[in-house]
């Protein structure tokens, strides 16, 4: 019985991989024949970044069961550190894909470090403290990057806070210019890079969730006291899920930032955190495929509604409410669960 159940989860995971690969192949073919609009083409990379954000937040909210309201903070961390790395290495590493990979890794590493640091005190606590601290973290990161000046010259990196005191040598370049953010970014993000990142994210998250550690994490979510009583190290497993989630968000931030020629800290504010949370809630807590679909659909939706001109954000909100109502309708849930592999109604839907 047990092995059969695992089989179903695995099958569901493979379906997710398959759908993502299929979507990538179809879009690549359509793109090469020039039959997708430039509007959609321009959104492919941000969609990939938002998908990674949604999956990583789903790991915290859906699998770990802790509410994070500052996920954009990790994205910001990854965006700024990743782009700084990419600009600093512009001459040293001429190959764009390699530089991109390094930038993603740097972004992920710094975001993981930030996640680790705030996790140390907070994940030891009971209750909703993580939500409050991550909310504050998002704002703190925004303020830091709004006041941070980073320059690079022949002597290496220079940092200063509040005002530009970097005193760069001849030929030096100011990378992060406080409130002006980073300008003149080379656009090296590609749809393929985004696709690879989404696949890596899925592999990491599925393997984590389906491992011994993943079962411990879900045990903590379902009943912390019971999990502790059987010897699960609560803080360790919480930390594992939270840091993984932060690292993936950092990589998503790097990918996102390198798709635009300019990036400012104010972009990654509370609204962005909530937007990602909406993706997760709409897609279903713990349901990775749902997060992917919700992130893609809700990124395209405001653009698709452009014909409503000034009323489009109103229409967007109405569509959101409708989708929330419809997907939570019990009649419809049982209707959709018929299409699900193994007919595990209820488990994946919420």
């Amino acid at each position: 019985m047990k092995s059969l159940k695992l089989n179903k989860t695995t099958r569901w995971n493979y379906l997710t991989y398959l759908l993502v690969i299929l979507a990538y192949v179809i879009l690549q073919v359509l793109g090469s024949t020039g039959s997708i609009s430039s509007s959609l083409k321009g959104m492919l990379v941000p969609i990939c970044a938002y998908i990674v954000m949604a999956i990583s937040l789903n790991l915290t909210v859906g699998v770990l069961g802790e509410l994070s309201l500052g996920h954009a903070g990790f994205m910001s961390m990854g965006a700024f550190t990743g782009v700084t790395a990419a600009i600093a290495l512009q001459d040293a590493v001429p190959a764009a894909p390699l530089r991109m990979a390094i930038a993603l890794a740097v972004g992920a590493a710094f975001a993981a470090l930030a996640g680790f640091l705030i996790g140390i005190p907070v994940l030891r606590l009971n209750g909703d403290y993580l939500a409050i601290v991550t909310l504050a973290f998002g704002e703190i990161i925004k303020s830091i990057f709004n006041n941070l000046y980073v320059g690079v010259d022949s002597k290496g990196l220079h940092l200063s806070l509040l005002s530009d005191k970097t005193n760069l040598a001849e030929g030096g370049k100011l990378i992060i210019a406080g409130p002006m953010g980073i300008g003149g970014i080379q656009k090296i993000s590609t749809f393929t890079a985004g696709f690879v990142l989404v696949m890596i994210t899925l592999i990491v998250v599925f393997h984590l969730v389906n491992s011994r550690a993943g079962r411990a994490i879900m045990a903590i979510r379902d009943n912390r006291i019971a999990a502790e009583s059987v010897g699960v190290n609560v803080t360790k497993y919480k930390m594992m899920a939270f840091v993984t989630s932060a690292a993936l968000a950092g990589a998503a931030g790097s990918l996102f930032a390198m798709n635009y020629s300019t990036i400012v800290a104010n972009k990654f504010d509370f609204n962005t955190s909530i937007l990602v949370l909406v993706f997760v809630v709409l897609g279903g807590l713990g349901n990775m495929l749902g997060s992917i679909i919700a992130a893609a659909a809700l990124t395209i939706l405001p653009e698709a509604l452009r014909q409503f001109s000034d009323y489009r954000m109103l229409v967007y909100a109405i569509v959101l409410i409708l989708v929330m109502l419809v997907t939570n309708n019990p009649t419809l849930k049982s209707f959709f669960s018929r299409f699900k592999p193994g007919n595990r109604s209820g488990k994946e839907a919420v």
Partner: protein
Amino acid sequence: MKKKFMCLMMAMVMVLSLAACGGSKAEETPAESTGSSSEETAAPSGAAFKLGGTGPLTGGAAIYGNAAKNGAQIAVDEINAEGGAIQFELKYEDDQHDAEKAVNAYNALKDWGMQISLGSVTSKPCEATSAETYADRIFALTPSASATAVTEGKDNMFQMCFMDPNQGSASAQYIADKGLATKVAIIWKNDDVYSKGIHDTFTAKAGELGLEIVSDTTFADGNDTDFSVQLSDAQSNGADLVFLPMYYQPASLILAQAKSMGYAPTWFGVDGMDGILTMEGFDTSLAEGVMLLTPFNADSTDERTQNFVKKYQEQFGEVPNQFAADAYDCVYAYKQALENAGATADMSAEDLCAAMIEQFTSMTFDGLTGDGMTWDASGAVSKSPKGMVIENGAYVGLD
């Protein structure tokens, strides 16, 4: 029964979203309304140049986006009504003052078939879209994105407004020349590109000219409602002029709070202050005596300006600000350049781009916001700012 109803509902939502998807891609509706509430726009006779721009039509900075859109619309209507060889079709898309959404809006315009661009209205979004127009070889002339990074390194990106650094140094120069003050306080927004750019050049220039900066305080997004600390700092240091390089919303609060503190220095603003008089719920008596540098004066006796102001008031019910005038000038500058180049509406964006670069670097243009404007190869405009003061709820030229 209930199930059937829900299925129907779901199907309806899907159809709706599909219809929405299709609509955004459709290119074959040339007379698509630009979403303005104005009367039927004059239908372009024959082929028209597709002119597109992005700007914040909703959200906190909407006043700028809508002003630019309306100003450009008036110019386009005038030109189309004349029925000359050059006809325009204008479309503005909303970017909510956000770089990501600006790129989306730009791509939507590209799908529509935009040939020449009005860039973006605000600085940071324009920096993002200018990288796109540069890569796609579409010529862009922004009415009001004033940051240096907008034009830097892009040969096909031009500005109709002053660059931020010029505004800062021109303000300092003006204050020193007119002897308005010797002790200056600055309150600026340290997470805003625009504010920071002006602040930095202002302080540099003020140092050169011997203006003493006695107080230099900041605020940021999120703590922009209480300015008592900044104002008392300026007051206790005896500043007799306060320089406000910022947009008008925080400025309106600063004016109100200074009044309640009984602090009445000379106020000096920049073009972002333009619009304060039309702000909803703002007591215009607070702005009495505020000085600002702006290239456009709605009270000018110049015939063209009066004509424009009259039309704008008729159509949109308010006095146009500098953004509207800049956008109006942009359209006329395009008309002049296209006429000089002998361009036709069936030319590709790339050919037009080459022709426009040649024209803009060589021509001289007279508009509402200045006479004898010229552009250098970097895309910066040269024109002289006008000092203005608010008297009895209206802008009056200082000299």
